Structure formats: C-alpha cells, structure tokens
C-alpha cells in the first residue's frame, strides 16, 4: 500500500516537478520540468531510483510535510534548514520520515530551488505525459496547505546516505555556445559581453532570469528586423532595454529579440540556482568543446549513484545523544553497520 504526502503548509511556489515533457514544442509548449535537473539526478542517486520520478520543487522556501506511512526522503538543490520532529537533518542526504512525523523545511540558505524527493516518487496523474506543473502554460498549479499527494511504490529501503555535490548556489562562470544570432552582435559587443560581470536581477523565475550590469546596453546590428524564431531554454535574449535575459525551463517557444548565445545544458542548474544579487560571467565556448563538456557531464550523472556514501552524523546535531549507547557494546571490525536497516 503506497502512502500519501500531506502538505500542512508551504511557501508560495512549491510544485510537483520531473524531467518535463517533450513532444509539444510544435504546439507552443516548452519542456518545463525541474529548474535544476541536476538536483533530480542527485535525488534519484540518493534514493537509488529512477530520475524520471517526480519530486517537489520549492522556490526560496519549503514547508511543513507529513506522510501516513514510513517514507524515505531525500533533500537536494538549494540548501534549506530541515528537521524531522524538530531534530535537524542533513541536506544532500536521504532520511527516513516516519509515519505521522513532521518534516519542516525552511528558507534557502544559499541558492534558489530546493527539492524534496520521496521513495517511489510523487505519483500524481500524468498531464500530457508528465507530472510537472508548467505554470506559465497554465498546466497544474502551485501546492497549498491541505493538499495531499499520492506516493508511488518504493522499491528500495536504503537511507542515511549522502552525496557531495558541485557547489552551484552562488553564481560564477557560465559557459555558452554561439547561437543562430550571435553573429548579429559585432565582435566588440561580444567581447564586452564575455568580460562583463552580471548581477542576477531580482526579476527572475522559471521562465527567465534578467541579468543586470553597469555600462552601455548590448545592442545587435539589426535589432528591429529580426523575425520571431524558435527559442530554447538557455538562450540569452537581449530585450529592448539591452539587458541580457537567460531563458529558463518554462520559457516561451518563439521570440523576436536577438540572442547572443546559449547556456550549456550542464550550466543551467547554476544559472537557475544563482540568487538575486550574485555575480555571473559568460564565456563563449566553441560547439565541439561544448559537446565534449556535455558528454563528460552526461557520464558523471550516469555514475552519480556510485558516489553516494553513508551519512556520518555530527554528534552535535544528535539531540538525544545521551540516550545512545556510546561506549559499551561489542563492535565488529568486519560487520558493515550500514547494511543494517534502521
């Protein structure tokens, strides 16, 4: 019998997300799905399950959750304060959420998008082939207090595992490839773009993120005559005010503003996670180099499951430390304590 996750309360932008949906581009809908897909791979690795399973995406702040049966959970993406029955639990790790216990997830300490994964995945009905809410398209909705979500059948039991993740929560260097309109910006403008530090503007969401900068606007040679054409997530569009706008997972499918380049897929998580005010830079990479980088990134994602390690508990974080038997008792040098079910 699979359980139910109840949302007792949550921030304004908690949604069900997965890898999104393909096949609707011709009908005007972009893929959507998790803003930080790397976090989905990490959650899948921690729980030893498919990356196709749906999780909860929490923008900026989490919420209060409980389940009606013992449930494995994993927490990934933007680190947030989390506790089970008021005992702090580690981020980037898997845990047991006992039936009826309260899981509290607070505000993001760094980054923007946090994820709550459950063993078996969130099992809401498929909508056009996926479970992901696509709010800009009008598909699905943000979750609110009182919502209950069905959980899929969990085929595994491992908990107490952690994963060391690439820090992607404070901005940094973003690699981009030239795109179909890059040549419409002259060499000097492209050079200035690649040497300008940008501040992630407060204006940013799952559709796009505005980049603020000091200095002259970026202008293409024939800004006004560009015909509307295909947009893909990662495209950096220069709008009328000359400020770059990185288009994200829920962007529109066509647009008439020129695009100076396209962010590499494996750097999209960093763009998404960069909080308002943090600094980003853009570096042009040739397409063949970008392909090699992405091939390595694909390989690294595929082997993520092999790099999970047991979670070592910090004694300071164990509230009921003195109830543990710390000294006496037989310890076997050969027995792996982590094979034991908690």
């Amino acid at each position, binding site marked *: 019998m699979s359980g139910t996750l109840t949302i007792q309360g949550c921030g304004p932008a908690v949604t069900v997300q997965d890898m999104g949906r*393909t096949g609707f581009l011709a009908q005007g809908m972009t893929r959507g799905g998790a803003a930080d897909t790397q976090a989905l791979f990490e959650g899948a690795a921690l729980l030893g399950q498919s990356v196709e399973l749906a999780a909860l995406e929490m923008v900026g702040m989490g919420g209060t959750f409980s389940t009606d049966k013992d449930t494995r959970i994993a927490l990934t993406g933007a680190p947030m304060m989390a506790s089970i029955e008021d005992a702090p639990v580690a981020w980037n790790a898997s845990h047991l959420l006992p039936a009826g216990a309260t899981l509290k997830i607070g505000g993001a300490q760094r980054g923007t998008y946090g994820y709550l994964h459950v063993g078996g995945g969130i099992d809401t009905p498929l909508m056009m082939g996926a479970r992901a809410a696509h709010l800009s398209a009008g598909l699905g909705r943000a979750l609110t207090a009182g919502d209950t979500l069905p959980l899929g059948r969990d085929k595994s039991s491992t908990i107490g595992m952690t994963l060391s993740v690439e820090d992607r929560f404070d901005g940094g260097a973003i690699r981009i*490839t030239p795109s179909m309109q890059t040549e419409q910006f002259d060499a000097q403008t492209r050079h200035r773009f690649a040497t300008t530090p940008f501040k992630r503007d407060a204006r940013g969401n799952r559709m796009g993120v505005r980049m603020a900068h000091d200095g002259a606007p970026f202008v293409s040679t024939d800004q006004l005559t560009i015909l509307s054409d295909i947009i893909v997530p990662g495209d950096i569009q220069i709008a009328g005010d000359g400020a770059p706008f990185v288009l994200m997972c829920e962007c529109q499918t066509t647009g008439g503003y020129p695009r100076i380049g396209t962010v*590499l897929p494996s750097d999209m998580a960093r763009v998404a996670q960069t909080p308002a005010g943090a600094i980003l830079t853009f570096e042009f990479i040739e*397409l063949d180099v970008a392909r090699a980088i992405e091939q390595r990134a694909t390989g690294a994602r595929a082997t993520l499951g092999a790099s999970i390690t047991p979670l070592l508990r910090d004694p300071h974080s164990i509230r009921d430390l003195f109830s543990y038997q710390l000294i006496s008792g037989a310890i076997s040098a050969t027995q792996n304590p982590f094979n034991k079910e908690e």
Partner: protein
Amino acid sequence: MADIPPIRPVGLSGLLVQFATSMSEPANRAAIAFRAAVEAQHWPEVRETSTSLVSTFISVDLVTTPPEAMTERLNHLLATQDWLNAPLPTGRTLWEIPTLYGTDHAPQLNEAAEAAGVSPETAIAELSSARVRVLTIGFAPGQPYTGELPPHWDIPRQQNLTKSVPSGALVVAIRQLIIFTNASPTGWRHVGQTAFRNFRPQSATPIALSPGDELCFPSITEAEYTRILTSDKGGNGGAERRVLT
C-alpha cells in the same frame, strides 16, 4: 531550384533550417512542408520538430549526435524538392470563431483602425471577413499566429505594452492576428474578444489548432458573446469547424 537554405545549430538542442529572413507565404509553406518531410523520415535521433514563421526546427541532442552528420542528412532532404513551392498540408480545418469587436471587452479597436487608416466600422468589416491561415503555433500552448491581412494592416506593435489582455483576446499587428492563450502583457492591439480557448489542459486534445488551419472571425454582438460564454464550456467558444482538405 531555389538556393539551399542555411542550417544553424540552436545551442546543443537541435538544428534550424531558415527558409527566409522575413515573413513570406511561400517560406511559411516551405517550413511546414519540410517539417512534415523530416517527420516522415523517422530518424531515431530526431526527438521532435516544430515550425516558426519561416523556419523548421529539428530537435536533436547535439551532444550525442554530431551536428555535421545531421546537417548533411538535412541538406540531402532539402535538395529533393523546391520547398518554396510545396503545397499546404492535408487534413486542414477551417474555424469560424465568433468575435466581439470593440466595446470594453476589446478596447483598442478604434486605435488599431486609426493605425490602419480605416474607420472602426471598416476595420470590423475587414477583420470579420478576412480569412487568415495559422502560420505558426508558439509563445504559449496552442497560440496561433495567423495571417496575412491586407498591407494596410502592417501596423507596428505599441511602444508601451498593454499590461494584460485576457485569454481569448484577438490582437493585431504586422498584418497578423493572434488569439491569446493566457492572460498576458502584449504590444499587440486588442481589437476583439473570443470565447475560444487555444489550450484545454483537461481535454484529450489539449490543443485545437494546427499550422495550416484557416481561421475567420465573424462579428457577434455583446449579447451573443455572453450567451456563448455561458453555453459553450468545451473551449470552442461557439466556433464552427469545417474540414478543408
């Protein structure tokens, strides 16, 4: 035979075949026909395809598929016929979508008429008798860009965006009409209001329109519009549909 159009990578997401640099009816037909031809190849590398006004996008993972190899295959396919003379697709539908022009529901009719150099009455007569074609679906789910209207409707977008037009709004600029899927800010002028819904997420066929379909927007009264709103819950907004080919 016309020149082979350029093929460009779109990030690492796929390749774009551009049949023109400005809107033209033959280039639009070429894009639609070439998309159908690519689909018919059933190449395993192709994830999906789409068209914009005058281009065809072929979604291919360029991380695993070398762009050169895919470009070569597309060039071979491009060389098989003169795409600018390709016929329209078969299985097209004509939609007659009842439209309330002007009033508080569509407050920019007079302004748009003035920009087109006609009286509001003439504007309604022209827009309600025009038969336009879906040039592309894009921006939002099911949202049609249709055209082309006569040359005097080549009116620019507004400098200042309208804060929000509602779902079903009929807007005009650059010889094209759009029905908006969702409430949205826009630079296009709001001349009519329909009860038509481009996107019906709960339906088995969530998206009604396809590129190549033809649309017309017969004028109705405010009373008829209100009646349709309350009686037609399916999303068709009182539209009549007829198979064209």
